[in-house]
Each structure stands twice: as structure tokens, then as C-alpha cells.
């Protein structure tokens, strides 16, 4: 393995074109990841036609590097402006932005940089060592029942994130699940909620047949609602300007959160392997587990470094893992890995167990590129920390119109539908009031992202088990995940009651 890795590295850095492609992927991914509205998928889609004339190894490498750096890039705007560049950076907002408000933006970005690199490197090493074995296990062991159970577990442990009470957290998730039902049903393709009958009148929306996309919702709930909150504070004359700090986290601070990093690597890696689950659930799970086990649990959501560490480690740990089913079995886990599969097909290649024999060079240059890309994130991220934080010195009054305009363009560019921009601004206002009432915008987004996937897995499970619910418990992994999810719900209820009792206790 080490020999193959060295060969891959020498192929990568021994060829000027490889270096150029590598650098383009690295900077392009970071740039597109950091700009709200466009993301690494936009870059991937734009570049796809050009891969036809590229060497297949360079093309696959380019997309792998974009994947690594793009997931990291979204953390910058999440921390500085409460605008996640991608869904997987949403949990980074919870503590990253409060840190910025407290004048600790440098530390938050520094932590995101180092933890993204650590998560990515660890994941790449695991990927290099055990692609074949892990992919076989994961794909055989994880059917629709397990996917549904995992989503149930993920929602159970992440529901209360960002909400003032457990019930409000769950209500937020359910609202997200309800929004996810708009569009077409996953089994029969029948349109849902695109025809409305209210007060004797019927309304039909062609656009709603395509469903409500989560990107405008994320932009609305995070970017637009944040601008509205700050605009309200300006109108009231109570807005405090965040201080721009350039402090990088110390080694001691990282040492204090070592277990959180390790836990998030494991969570991110296993979530990343599973098709469709990917980095978003990984980040939410990483964050919720960090909150669960942390000694500073009460500080989560108020600017706790551990929160940034957990979500950024987990989402980058998912990147290497997502390549495993793709390379070993030809199963893409998400949109970007699907594009990589497309590149294989464009060049007449078929990923699968034989790829290590038939295209060993391609595989190892990709592995090496992902490894070095993750390492270089530290260096580039350090430079970014020292430069990008200065944006905070620009008055928010000047930035706000730019943020809204950027968000509007991003929402529109997604599908060229103006309804997406309407939805984004509506979500922004709803998000403003939900935040004011203690509900969780992140919970709604999580429900929205996982809703369709969950329904699809549930319907397939039901068909496979012939509508026998006990069938879930005949599959060990599904049974364990469901039991853990139920335990998580019960324990969170008990914790909520205890906290209430403690608050009521005299003194």
C-alpha cells in the first residue's frame, strides 16, 4: 500500500499537468465551497464537459480534490456570516458564528481548517487501506431497512440541535419532513401538494411538482434570516460589531478536544460510506454526539470550539469514505461521486473490484491527490485565516445587500426557477420568527434533506418485508440502530425533565 501511495504521489507531483489540475481543483473547490449559492457541484457540473478531452486519471483526480476542498470551503462563510456554503457545513454555524460574534473568528476558522484536514487525511488513509473490504461489508449489510434505521437514528440524536426545547426540536424536524413531501412521491412518481383547494378555489403549481429544494431553504433559514436579524438590531440600535481576531487555536486547545475529533472521524467515515447519507448527516451526527459527551455541553450553540471541531471533522471524514463504494463497487453515494462515475463512463471505464488491477495508476494518483489536498488545506486554510477574517472589518450595513443579492442569485441559478428565490426569502422570514420562538432552522433543514431519502428507504423496506414491521428487528444492524434511536429519544426526554427540575429547584 505504501509503495503504491508513493508511486501515486510521484505521478502526481512528477507531471506539471497533474500539478496544475491538482491546484485548480484545490483552489476551485475552496472558492466554490465558500461562495453561498454556488458550490462544488456547480463547479463539477461546469467542468464535466471538459473532462472528455482530459486524461481519465487527471479528471477523476480533479473531482476528488474538488470534493475535499469544497467541503472545507463552506465552513468559512458558515463561521463568518452564519451562511453555510453547503448543507454539510450547517452545523458549523451553530458554534462557529457565535465565536465570530465573540471576536474568536480566527480560532473558529483555524479549528475548521485543522479539523477538516485531519478528518480528510484520516478518511483517506482508511480508504487506501480498506476500500475493498469496507465497501463489500457496507453494501451487503446496508439495505433499505438499515438506511431507514440510520436516518431514524440520525434524526433522533440530532433533533434537538439548535432548539430551545426538545419538543421544538422535534417539531422543526417534522416540519422539514412535511416540506420534503412536496413534489413527487418516491414510489409511483405521483405529484403531491402541487394542487391546492382552498376556500372552494383550486390552485395548481407546475413548479412545485419538482419539489422544494433544500438549497434555497438553507440560504433562507441561515443567510436571509441572519441578515434580517442583524437589520432588526440595526433598526433598534443594538447591533454589536464582531471583532476580527487572527488567533489560531493552540495545540493545547486541540488536545482538549482529541476525543471529539476521533469520534467525529469514525462517525464521518461510516456515514460517508453509505450511499445517499454522506457528509450532511455525518456533520449533524458528529455535532450531536460531541454535545452529548462534552463536559461543556451547556456552551454548545454559544460559541464552543468543540462544536466547530466536531462538525468539520465529521463532514470531511465523509469525503474519503464516499469514494469507497464508488471505486470498489461503482456505487456513487452523492451528486459529486455520481459525476465521477460519469467521468469513468465517458472514458469507457467501469469502476468496481477490478479497478485496482485494471487502472491501478488512476486509483493511486486519486488517493494521493486526496491525501495531499487534505494536508494542503491546513496551509491554505492558515493563509485564509489570516486574510479572510478581515472581511469582518467591513461594516455589516455594506455587506448585507451583497449577501442578499448573492443568496438570490444562488437560489435562482440552482434550477433557473424564480420560485426558488421566493421560497428562499419566505424561508428567511419564517426562519427569523422560528429563531425568535426557539425552533431550530437546522432541524427543518435536516428533516428536509433526509425526508425524501427516509421515505424512499421506508417504502422499499415495507415492500421487502411485506408490511411486517417486525422485519426491522430481524436484521441486527437495523434493530440496533432503531433501538439506539429510541434510547436517544427517551434519554433526551429524561434529560429535559431533569434540566427543568434543576431549574425549578430552590437556590
Amino acid at each position: 500500500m505504501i509503495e503504491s501511495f508513493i508511486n501515486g504521489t510521484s505521478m502526481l507531483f512528477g507531471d506539471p499537468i497533474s500539478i496544475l489540475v491538482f491546484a485548480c481543483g484545490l483552489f476551485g473547490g475552496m472558492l466554490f465551497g465558500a461562495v453561498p449559492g454556488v458550490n462544488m457541484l456547480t463547479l463539477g457540473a461546469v467542468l464535466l464537459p471538459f473532462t472528455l478531452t482530459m486524461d481519465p486519471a487527471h479528471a477523476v483526480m480533479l473531482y476528488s480534490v474538488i470534493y475535499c476542498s469544497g467541503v472545507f470551503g463552506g465552513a468559512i462563510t458558515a463561521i463568518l456570516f452564519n451562511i453555510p456554503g453547503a448543507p454539510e457545513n450547517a452545523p458549523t454555524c451553530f458554534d462557529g458564528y457565535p465565536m465570530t460574534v465573540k471576536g474568536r473568528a480566527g480560532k473558529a476558522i483555524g479549528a475548521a481548517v485543522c479539523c477538516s484536514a485531519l478528518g480528510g487525511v484520516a478518511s483517506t488513509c482508511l480508504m487506501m487501506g480498506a476500500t475493498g473490504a469496507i465497501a463489500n461489508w457496507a453494501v451487503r449489510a446496508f439495505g433499505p431497512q438499515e438506511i431507514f434505521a440510520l436516518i431514524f437514528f440520525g434524526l433522533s440524536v440530532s433533533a434537538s440541535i439548535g432548539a430551545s426545547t426538545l419538543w421544538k426540536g422535534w417539531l422543526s424536524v417534522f416540519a422539514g419532513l412535511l416540506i420534503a413531501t412536496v413534489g413527487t412521491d418516491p414510489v409511483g412518481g405521483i405529484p403531491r401538494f402541487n394542487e391546492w383547494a382552498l376556500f372552494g378555489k383550486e390552485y395548481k403549481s407546475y413548479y412545485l411538482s419538482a419539489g422544494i429544494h433544500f438549497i434555497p431553504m438553507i440560504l433562507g433559514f441561515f443567510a436571509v434570516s441572519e441578515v434580517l436579524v442583524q437589520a432588526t438590531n440595526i433598526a433598534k440600535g443594538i447591533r454589536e460589531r464582531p471583532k476580527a481576531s487572527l488567533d489560531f487555536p493552540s495545540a493545547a486547545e486541540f488536545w482538549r478536544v482529541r476525543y471529539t475529533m476521533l469520534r467525529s472521524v469514525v462517525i464521518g467515515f461510516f456515514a460517508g460510506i453509505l450511499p445517499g447519507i454522506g457528509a450532511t448527516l455525518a456533520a449533524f451526527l458528529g455535532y450531536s454526539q460531541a454535545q452529548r459527551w462534552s463536559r461543556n455541553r451547556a456552551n454548545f450553540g454559544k460559541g464552543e470550539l468543540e462544536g466547530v471541531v466536531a462538525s468539520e471533522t465529521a463532514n470531511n471524514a465523509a469525503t474519503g469514505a464516499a469514494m469507497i463504494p464508488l471505486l470498489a463497487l461503482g456505487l456513487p453515494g452523492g451528486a459529486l461521486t455520481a459525476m465521477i462515475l460519469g467521468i469513468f463512463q465517458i472514458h469507457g471505464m467501469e469502476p468496481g473490484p477490478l479497478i485496482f488491477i485494471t487502472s491501478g495508476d488512476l486509483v493511486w494518483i486519486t488517493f494521493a491527490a486526496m491525501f495531499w489536498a487534505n494536508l494542503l488545506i491546513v496551509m491554505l486554510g492558515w493563509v485564509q485565516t489570516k486574510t479572510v477574517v478581515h472581511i469582518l472589518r467591513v461594516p455589516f450595513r455594506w455587506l448585507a445587500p451583497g449577501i442578499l443579492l448573492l443568496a438570490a442569485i444562488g437560489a435562482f441559478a440552482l434550477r433557473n426557477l424564480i420560485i426558488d428565490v421566493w421560497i428562499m426569502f419566505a424561508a428567511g422570514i419564517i426562519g427569523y420568527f422560528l429563531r425568535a420562538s426557539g425552533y431550530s432552522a437546522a432541524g427543518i433543514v435536516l428533516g428536509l434533506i433526509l425526508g425524501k431519502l427516509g421515505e424512499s428507504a421506508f417504502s422499499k423496506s415495507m415492500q421487502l418485508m411485506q408490511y411486517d414491521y417486525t422485519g426491522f428487528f430481524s436484521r441486527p444492524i437495523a434493530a440496533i440502530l432503531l433501538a439506539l434511536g429510541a434510547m436517544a429519544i427517551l434519554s433526551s426526554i429524561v434529560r429535559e425533565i431533569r434540566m427543568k427540575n434543576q431549574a425549578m429547584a430552590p437556590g
Partner: protein
Amino acid sequence: MMMRQVWRPALEWLVWVVLVTVAYLQIPTFDQEISVYAYGPSGWPRAVCVALLIGATCQLGWQIMTLWRDTTSADSNREITAVTGSKNARTVAAFSSYQSIIQRGCFFLAPFLYLFVATRVGFYVSAPFFILLLLLLLEVRSIWALLSVTLTIYGIALLVFTRLFFVALPVGRANPFYDINNAIIAIVRTGI
């Protein structure tokens, strides 16, 4: 204050119930049979509606129980703090001048006005006015700042999305604006 504490959870519950009822009443419009799936397209939405109703009722029960046990509602303070960033809820609640309310209302409505206008006169024509409007609502009064910030944001947006990424943005439906928008695109892309 006590009345507000009692009414607020009830109002929240009512909002959820109305939302669920409206959604539930729409389900029959797509309640068709799918031969391979017994629950059909309406099974999952129905379950989510029921879950929402249970969640909302539990939330109401929880809050009423908390009030009944005479607990000071920490949530209310937390809620206002979340929006305002201030720890002193009373000071914040007391602050409400008409000017501030109108200013906030305009800021909330501005994006919708912009969308309404942008689909008719096009993005390229309406965007600078939208930026200018937001700056004015955010109490920027210096002419220099208004012009320079508007031009900077508009210029960057044009360069990045029109020249670099070739994003197709709305060009409007009304004829003169349609032509003006296309002219702006041509100038930005070709530099002529």
C-alpha cells in the same frame, strides 16, 4: 407577562394545528393507489401530519405544565435574546418605536418587492436599485458610501456570475427592459 406566557404556547400550537389541518385537507388531492405500494403516496405525509400534531400537543402540554408548576419561563428570555443578541429582555421588549417597526417591515418586504420587479424589468436593471434600497433601509446616508457600495456589489456580481460563471439571470418580460438587460449582458461578457 403571565398572560403572554399562557397565550404564546397556545398561539404556537394553533399555528401548527392550522398548518397540519391545511396540509391534511390537501392529501385527498393526490390520494391514489399504487399497485406495488399499499400505503400509496399519501401514507407518509399522513404520518408526518400526525407526528406534527402529537409534537405540537406535547409542546403545548410541556409549556402549560411548566407554567402550572410556576417556573419562570427561561425560554421567553432566551427567545428574545436569540433575535436581539441582548441579555436584557425587558429593555429589548420595551424598545419599539413606530419608526423602527416601519423600518423593519420595509426591510422584510424589500426582497419580495425586488422579486416582483425583477421578473418584469430583469435582474440587471433592478439589482442596483435593490442594493440602494437595502442600504437606505440599513441607515446608510452618505452619498459616497451609497454609490460606491452599490457599484462594487453590482460590479462584482456581474463579473462573477455573468462573465465568469455564465449564470443565466432573469432579463425581464417588458420589451425595453429586455433589450437593456441583454445589452448589459453583452457588454459585460464581451467588454464592448
